[in-house]
């Protein structure tokens, strides 16, 4: 599936090997070893590489994300660096001014971390638990659907539609999110369903 041994992995592996063996093999003494120890290690050594694509425009440049910790091993992973994927046929490792700053998007201080609710007339958000937020959303949706669902139109034709709540899908979510969203939204009878194709 995934071609694991990328050019970069190969280079990185070679570099680490060199540090471990070559110094000794050439017979460096204490001073040289101390000097070698003083050099800051390549910062990507020991990080986990993950392949991804840039979430901005539709060129979909390949990127490599480097993290401390490995999600696939169930660890907490903190992304520390993102760069262009040289193996990717479209961008061949390059990134634009937006893609080059992706790390700061991932770590933006305005990333949301908690569900929040703003009550009618209030001038601020307050925290709410996921459970309460989701229960509330389901309640609001069901009440509106129950009150406004149209099973038949005035001509007696079965139309099974719900026109008073709308759903606006995104532009950067995955196909898999899109399909699951489609199933949930359409099953309710929502018609005002759209995405960001036009803007």
């Amino acid at each position, binding site marked *: 599936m*995934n071609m694991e041994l990328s050019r970069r992995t190969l280079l990185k592996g070679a570099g680490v090997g060199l540090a471990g063996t070559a110094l000794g093999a050439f017979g460096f003494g204490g001073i040289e070893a101390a000097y070698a120890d003083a050099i800051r290690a390549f910062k990507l050594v020991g990080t986990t590489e*993950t392949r*991804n694509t*840039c979430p*901005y*425009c*539709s*060129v*979909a440049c390949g990127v490599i*994300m480097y*993290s401390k*910790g490995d*999600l696939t091993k169930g660890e907490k992973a*903190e992304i520390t660096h993102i760069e262009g994927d040289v193996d990717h*046929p*479209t961008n061949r490792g390059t990134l634009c*001014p937006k893609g080059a*700053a992706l790390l*700061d998007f*991932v770590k*933006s*201080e305005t990333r949301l971390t*908690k*569900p*929040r*609710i*703003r009550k*009618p007339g209030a001038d601020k958000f307050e925290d709410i638990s996921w459970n309460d937020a989701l229960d*509330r*959303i*389901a309640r609001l*949706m069901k009440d509106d659907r129950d009150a*406004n669902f149209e099973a038949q139109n005035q001509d007696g034709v079965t139309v099974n*539609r719900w026109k*008073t709540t*709308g759903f*606006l899908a*995104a*532009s*950067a*979510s*995955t*196909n*898999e*999110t*899109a399909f*699951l*969203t*489609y199933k*949930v939204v359409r099953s*309710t*009878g929502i*018609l*005002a*369903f*759209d*995405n*960001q194709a*036009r*803007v």
Partner: protein
Amino acid sequence: MTNSWTDIKNTDLVIIMGGNAAEAHPCGFKWVTEAKANRGAKLIVVDPRFTRSASVADFYAPIRQGTDIAFILGLINYCIQNDKVHWDYVKAFTNATYLVKDGFSFKDGLFSGYDESKREYDKSSWDYQIGEDGFVMVDDTLSNPRCVWNLLKEHVSVYTPEMVERICGTPKDKYLKVAEMVAETSSPTKTMTSMYALGWTQHSKGSQNIRSMAMLQLILGNIGMRGGGMNALRGHSNIQGLTDIGLMSNLIPGYLTIPTQKEVDFATYMSTRGFKPLRPDQMSYWQNYKKFFVSFQKSMWGDEAQPWNDFAYDWLPKLDVPAYDVLRAFELMHQGKMNGYVCQGFNPLLSFPNRKKCTDALSKLKFLVTMDPLDTETARFWENHGEYNDVDPSQIQTEVIQLPSTCFAEDDGSLVNSGRWLQWHWAGGTPPGEAQRDTWIMAQIWKRLKALYEKEDGPLPDPILKVRWPYADPDDPKADEIAREINGYAIEAVYDPTDPTKVLVEKGKQLASFGQLRDDGTTSCGCWIYTGCFTEDGNNMARRDNSDPDEAGFYSKWAFSWPANRRILYNRASADMNGQPWDPSRKVIAWNGTKWEGYDVPDIAPTAKPDVVGPFIMNPEGTARLFTRTMMKDGPFPAHYEPFESPIANPVAPNVKGNPAARVFEGDMAQFGEAEKFPYAATSYRLTEHFHFWTKHVQPNAVMQPEFFVEISEQLAEEKGIKQGGWVKVMSNRGEVKAKAVVTKRIKPLQCDGKTVHIVGVPLHWGFTGVAKKGLGPNTLTPFVGDANIETPEYKAFLVDIAPLTEPVS
């Protein structure tokens, strides 16, 4: 895109019109640079601004925004007048020879059948003459005055170089230079690629802008070719996928359509979807519609969708209007007819036109739910931010629930790039705080709705209760599970139709191609055009073999390209009537005497004889349409219409305002401004340092382009007494913005119909959340009207006035 990013390297001529790839798609633009450096390709840029794409072009021509159709129909006229037509291609692969009904006409800017009170056409005359054999009548000699070619020739004759200059403001000599360069690609061994984006779509006739260029590309024989094609540079990373999967009011995944209420049952619905071939021996691939539809219904409702209940046809909602696009949704909200709205990663307060109307509309909702990785303006539309969001929270009764979602780096799944490549990506980071994946959030909403309907009464609960939900952890469906579901599988064994003893796919196995879909309920498939993306061989979207035989630019083992891993659509048209490439140095596929073979998956049945079956297999004609029958609301040919707000009257149809078939809501018509009060032609645009409203949350980008500005010419600055870097006020009939003025040589006034037209550029990246300076944007100014066919808002051409402000500059 009909082709891919990497294929651009194969071109001889790039025309960038309606886009600015060097700034908006920089790493894709590198393939233009490759073509220039390695093939000696030329680049033409036609744009109101001298953009960075223009700065590296071989030739730049200015144009007034909203006049592209006049420019391109002028190019078609030039090609016809100067015999720069790929005749063999046009005669064999387009409907040029087809005869059109006698009732069809075009006069004074209107096609036959116009009803002014409804702003709609009766399109019955926009069709072919059908012979006694049931097929379209044709005239291979092109001498019949009613054949498409002669009607087209007549239709474009008004767009002379002089008329193009008068409408577009493009100096005649520059226009003719473009025409000359473009026309050269009518040679079978030369190709041109068209790269466009929102600069063409965001007009009240956006679809026809694109159609005009598609027609030109057909006349030049550039569709299906390496280095050719119509290449839409999509704006977002997966807007192609979200459209493919049909997240639009009138779509079902794979470009199937939601029924209307006139389609009272499944039989009626299917009666207009037979797609009987219009010419002998043609594939007319949509004849398989029922297989795609039934397989989708099976993926949606599983065992509940059965032949006896028309595969749960009744459970699909039925439309009462053509579409509930976002403009209609916000119009209904504004009228108080919409109570709830869910925004999944979208920022309509900054994205939709006429911001004041958007704020008023959101304020009338009972509830609003947002899901986003970032703190959006929409989630805070009720919060006062002074001049940047001047609202009184106490007067807004909308309940708002803001849900934190993951971003790309914390999520697995596939995205579809502009070139239709489905590329898998992997999560590499732990989400911040309590942020959750959208799939989890949607599963949780469904689970709770289901629980409520199990416990309480309510109308028609079954479609919700019985949605097919085949996930190992129903609370948290995984991306690969859903990807397998989208690809489709055999519910029962699938047999070979020519040999019923032969099993093609065993029960329970993943399907290998959409050719294996069945209309009897034995296959399930979420989105037929994606079949092949996740087969018994595994996840083909995750393939990472970047080999490229003969450096032809296909990269066919990298990821998966829909449909059927095909990299160039209509690639049968790259070969002549004997199946041999028009240009041997640019072979895509060729006929070897018994079948098609080559670099790409043939876009035709592998054994379809080249002199029998036409290349445009999705059309019942087998050919491409220069005359598009009744497919579009505003005409079977494009015609020049001015933007709804225009500095001049339409020179070719002075009595027609805007696009006569575009939908305009009552209150919005009154909000159009006139040139007397708002004399300057404004347009919105994007900057290379920013991505929509996301990167104002990103420190480095916010530093590079920290604040809102408007761009004007030196001439307009002098006329209005505006200083470089000084404050200005820009006003439209719907609102006003304050901005710094950037006075440049990149914009120059144009002469249109004897009048000097000044252009005002309004970039769109600022709001009131994030780390950049607060600012407004074009949507405060723009009109609430969309394209006649798909309702893309007219962001690219509107009227404003501008005045200097005396405030000190910080």
